[in-house]
């Protein structure tokens, strides 16, 4: 049993408080994991949008020749782009809209800006939680160090 809490002594803690801090630590850990996944999704979306912009920009010269259309397992067929300035974009809710190349690039750039802003927010939240976790860990380590037997 840990000694009873004394406000002035940081090395002692009520066992219930100790358990609560451990619980918070686990909760925060789970939150960081979840937010980390969100961050990855946003980053992936951003890279994908950038790759699409690069593709749209490179479509015009490709119209004069054939391109390779990947059909999976490393297999491709030759394909011809009928109109490189007609881009079809999925805008969500099972809707696809046709845009010109320039409009499609604008649309993707807007999405990139939004994803960057969201990623920044998520990173900020992760950082805040990490700071709180560090404080709790430090507090628990102090208590553990003064109660080496763990009793």
């Amino acid at each position, binding site marked *: 049993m840990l000694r009873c809490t004394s406000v002035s002594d940081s090395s002692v803690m009520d066992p219930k408080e100790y358990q609560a801090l451990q619980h918070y630590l686990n909760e925060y850990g789970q939150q960081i994991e979840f937010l980390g996944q969100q961050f990855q999704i946003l980053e992936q979306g951003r890279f994908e949008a950038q790759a699409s912009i690069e593709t749209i920009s490179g479509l015009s010269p490709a119209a004069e020749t054939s391109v390779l259309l990947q059909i999976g397992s490393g297999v491709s067929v030759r394909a011809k782009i009928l109109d490189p300035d007609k881009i079809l974009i999925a*805008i*969500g*809710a099972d*809707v*696809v809209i*046709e845009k010109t190349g320039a409009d499609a690039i604008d649309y993707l750039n807007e999405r990139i800006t939004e994803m960057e802003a969201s990623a920044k927010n998520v990173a900020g939240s992760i950082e805040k939680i990490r700071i709180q976790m560090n404080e709790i860990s430090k507090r628990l380590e102090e208590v553990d160090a003064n109660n080496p037997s763990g009793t």
Partner: protein
Amino acid sequence: MNSIPPKIQNQINMLQQIQQQLQNILHQKNQYEIAAKETRRATEEIEPVNEDTVIFMSVGTIMVQKKRDDVIKDLSDKAETLDLRIKSLEKQEKALQSRFEQLQGQIKLALEGKPPAE
């Protein structure tokens, strides 16, 4: 350590069940809210374009070309349905939340050895 009386244990089990139901409802509500937001956003994207703009909409496993106004109508209907589902889930959430708090109060009183104030 004293063991928990069966009646209270039963109430605790019920509380856990309600909590699980609440989580399921919240998850479902969240999914519908995301879908509703996406639908509104798609509508906002389509509204300003010309009537002759090529738009496809998913029908089963294929994409079918549709007129702009028809797509807007479909999306508006979809958003309306989603809003109704969200409202229905909110009602369920409220009822469960109230049941949860009531049961929590009863358990607390029982553990403190006080009779429930009914």
